[in-house]
């Protein structure tokens, strides 16, 4: 059996939002006019009844979104009155990773899933932080962070995470 036999397939590639579209949702209210149509296109139904800290996946599209409180993020104060849960994180999955079909559009920052760890460092510069135990590098850009999780042999990217930086508590 091929490894991807059980991975759900996307029936509608037109539903797939671009990376730019998805990243533009960061900081947007979960129930806002910009987020709702994207959630519908991806078939996501976040449930905020228990908590605002909710993550929803769209394995057919290779994308997940995480929602959370604006107060936990460094941009929180810029968002004015508490807007409720906002989009705090976007995940792009390589094909087969965590049972996802794989994100089928262009990745942000000029990356692709075949990019090695060394190549990513060439492209983005020295990472702000690297994990000692895991194959994971992190960069901070203006108002966003980028985290790349690599395969064990570091020859490819498994997961691209772009999110709002956490607020540093004093």
């Amino acid at each position, binding site marked *: 059996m091929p490894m991807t036999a059980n991975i759900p397939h996307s029936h509608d590639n037109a539903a797939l939002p671009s990376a730019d579209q998805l990243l533009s949702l960061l900081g947007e209210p979960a129930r806002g006019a910009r987020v709702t149509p994207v959630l519908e296109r991806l078939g996501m139904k976040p449930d905020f009844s228990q908590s605002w800290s909710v993550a929803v996946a769209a394995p057919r599209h290779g994308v997940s979104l995480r929602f959370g409180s604006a107060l936990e993020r460094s941009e929180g104060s810029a968002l004015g009155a508490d807007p409720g849960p906002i989009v705090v994180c976007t995940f792009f999955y390589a094909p087969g990773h*965590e049972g996802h079909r794989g994100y089928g559009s262009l990745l942000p920052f000029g990356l692709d899933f075949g990019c090695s760890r060394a190549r990513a460092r060439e492209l983005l510069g020295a990472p702000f932080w690297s994990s000692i135990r895991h194959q994971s590098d992190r960069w901070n850009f203006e108002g966003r962070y980028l985290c790349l999780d690599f395969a064990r042999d570091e020859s490819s990217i498994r997961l691209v995470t772009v999110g709002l930086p956490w607020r540093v508590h004093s």
Partner: protein
Amino acid sequence: MQHEKDSVAGAPSPRRRWLAWLGRLRRDTRGASLIEQVLIMAVAVVGMVGFSRFGSELHEQLDHEAQHVRGRGAPGSELSLGALASSYQPELPSRGTASGARPAPGSGRATSAASSTPSGAATAPNGSAATNGTATAPNGTATAPNGSAAPRGAASATPNGSAAPNGAATASNGAATATAPNASAAVPNRAAAAGAAALPSASSSGGGPSGTPGASAGGVPPRSSRPDLECGDSGRYQADLGANSRSRNAPRVPEGSDLERDHIPQGHSLRVRAGQLLDAEITRRVQAQMAERCRDLTPEEEARIVSAVVQETAAAVSQRMNAMVENRGFTVALPHPFHEQGRTHSNASLAASEAGDLAAAARADMQHYLDILDDEVRRGSISAECAGLLRKVFAERAAVSKAQYDAELQKIMLTHLQKKSGTLNTSLKKQFEQEAKCQ
């Protein structure tokens, strides 16, 4: 110089000599091992005497039991069955037949028509165990004039003043006939009273209509005898109906009886629901910890951590929790032929689907029994009196809500989860250590 001073002042006082001797004794280590041996021997001798005495008491008790089995009187009483034979009334209702039949209507026990007071006296509403006030007590004690059977239960009262076997109290007008074999009129009362304490408590039946659990019209039952379970008895599986219990007061299924204890709703549903509540609680705690210690987990990472911790912790908690859930579950004593007609008898497949609403499941079980009750009485699988008791018990239990069932299970679950909080924390730590995004 001290010596000179002492000699000048004369011989030391007795108090000084005493203190000096004590000081020497304190420093003296000679003979220490001898004293230890003497102490050890003394403890051993006391132990031997104690065990020997315990053994002879036990032997004596067993002798009494053996004599009782041979029909030579109840253990711990002077009364012999032979002495009672002269006053034996053949029409006196018998208890608990093989099909769970209870005494005929009009001769019911203290539970249905009379009430048992905390002091242990069985009182009948309409008169009394001793309407004519002529009751006699085999052990020579007089019964109360207002129909309360003598608290010390060896007394038995009948209208004509004759003694009934084994301390049974009867009333003549049929409105209230209290039989208390083994001097325990409160045996059935544990049902009604304990029904209130079963999982979960029925708010409407505080203490039950018929007495206080454990109250005994006949006084304390003999040490060696456990009261018999009777058809229609209800309450907690262990504490009230005696299942899995080694308590000498816990009722037991009489020999040769086909009575069975039936959980309502079924025990499997209770365990499934307790498991659901446990999983939800562990998940809630894990999520709270993740919010504190992890950053931007994907849905899959989050689910993996939750699943691993839930699995490990629930496995550690479930076994003992399930035993308690089962033991605290509401149960009724039913004859086997009737029980096997039950909706959930040998049918565990309903458990999972019904666990979400235990009140509805219980009502469905009880309604099914009520629907077949008349037919089964006609068929003889259950007595009319027991059927009457079931109707009453079911009416009380129908008032218990879903929230009450859940609240009781939640309490049990939290108790056991608290005991295993170490397992939970260890599991959390292990999962967080494996995850790059968690501290």
